[in-house]
């Protein structure tokens, strides 16, 4: 790893570390009740008691941001899990066995990939209706094709390597070849796709919630806080800027890590 790559990696690690800490904080306790409205604190300025100020209902923005991070991370993790789990299975099977099954699945996959994942998620939400779990399902499904493609490409490369052929000649079963001999070599690729997946999931979740078809009120979410604060942008721009900055930090951390992890040269 050269110097610039190393500093990128460390920056990414630090940012992601902070985000993870904030997630844990949000899981344990928030400074204020994120749902408690305090008419006296409406649009309260940034201060020591309210780090990020208060919103139009006098709710503490920092507490709501903590919950928002927690929610976003939960959704992103679920989405990536769905995508990686099914994508890996699908990619391994199609990449290894090839044939007509691969042909059909990959045609279908290509059609889905030609489709931006946001659009795909919109279709699925259109079917399931808006909501947090619907969003997880929608984004998870929308992410499967890209994971499947990455895994398939890698498996395709590995399956024709001589060492896989050797193991075949020993008489090992296909399952053993896939699990024992191919899967461990997918580690690096999977790691970087998982991180990039987190990056995309955070972005998509925030976008969907901004549009109002993700996490539903009164539960706070970063995207939704942005769209709500936008109406008061003349009076209280800070309630939009803080949640926005947090989204930027999350994506920045993951993208820095994704750029540096896994791609060895």
């Amino acid at each position, binding site marked *: 790893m050269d110097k610039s790559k190393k500093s990128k990696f460390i920056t990414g690690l630090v940012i992601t570390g902070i985000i993870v800490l904030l997630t844990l904080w949000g899981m344990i306790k928030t400074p204020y009740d994120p749902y408690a409205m305090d008419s006296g604190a409406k649009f309260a300025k940034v201060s020591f008691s309210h780090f990020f100020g208060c919103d139009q209902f006098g709710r503490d923005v920092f507490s709501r941001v903590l919950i928002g991070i927690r929610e976003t991370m939960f959704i992103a993790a679920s989405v990536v899990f769905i995508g990686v789990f099914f994508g890996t299975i699908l990619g391994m099977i199609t990449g290894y066995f090839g044939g007509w099954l691969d042909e059909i699945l990959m045609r279908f996959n290509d059609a889905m990939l030609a489709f931006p994942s946001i659009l795909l998620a919109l279709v699925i939400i259109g079917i399931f209706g808006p909501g947090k779990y619907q969003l997880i399902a929608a984004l998870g499904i929308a992410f499967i094709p890209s994971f499947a493609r990455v895994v398939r490409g890698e498996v395709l490369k590995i399956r024709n390597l*001589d*060492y896989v052929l*050797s*193991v075949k*000649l*020993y008489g*090992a079963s296909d399952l*053993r070849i896939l699990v024992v001999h191919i899967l*461990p*070599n997918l580690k690096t690729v999977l790691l970087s796709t998982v991180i990039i997946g987190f990056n995309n999931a955070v972005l998509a979740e925030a976008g969907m919630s901004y549009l109002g078809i993700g996490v539903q009120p009164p539960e706070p979410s970063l995207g939704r806080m942005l769209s709500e604060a936008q109406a008061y942008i003349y009076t209280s721009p800070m309630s939009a800027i803080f949640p926005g900055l947090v989204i930027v930090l999350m994506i920045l951390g993951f993208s820095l890590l994704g750029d540096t992890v896994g791609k060895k040269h």
Partner: protein
Amino acid sequence: MSNVLEVRNLTVEFKKNKKPFYAVNDVSFDVKEGEILGLAGESGCGKSTLSRAILGIQKKGVTGEIRHYYKRPQMVFQDPAGSLNPAKTIGFILEEPIRVRGHFSKEERERRVKDMLKKVDLPEEFLTRYPNELSGGQRQRVCIAASLMQEPRFLIADEPVSALDVTVQKQILDLLKKLHKELNLSILFISHDLRVIFDLCDRVMVMKSGKIVEMGDREEVYFHHKDPYTAQLMEAARTKYQ
């Protein structure tokens, strides 16, 4: 002498831009017990496809008859970097053949792995090393060792020394000769280097565009050939090596 392999009218057909293309075209030959049969040919002549078809790795488009007289023939490949799993230790790689087949106890397997390592002149410390810690020649020794773990009687060696420096090349060839004698192996040895084939093989086949154009004893093929392509090949080698 009996045969370890009989190939009759083997053809491998690929579709290339919808036109049929015969990578292997109506090939028939035998490999006799205990012999090293050389297969010479230039790149793209179909030697690798032929070996894959014989071992059943290539199945699509294969017609004709392939008859093995012993179970589980093995193969040694050209690129020693790609033929070892980078995520596994040498010990794991060597044990794998007898782990998937055969019912040996853990101790017995370990004993066999150690024995084999000795046979290919590698020290025991290598058991815990990973392939990328080894030199090209050492890796090729590991590959040979792994291919012999199931005690096969027939081995295909596909350009096993082409990627190596001359001095290492010689060591590996000497190792193959030794193992051939000790284990009474039959080997189909594929190479583009006519000197190596002459050095190692009893009988030689020359392949061009999917066909065997000449086959016979070493001396016959090298000095009393009938086919014009063989003549061309030998002439090129003669000028090159003087």
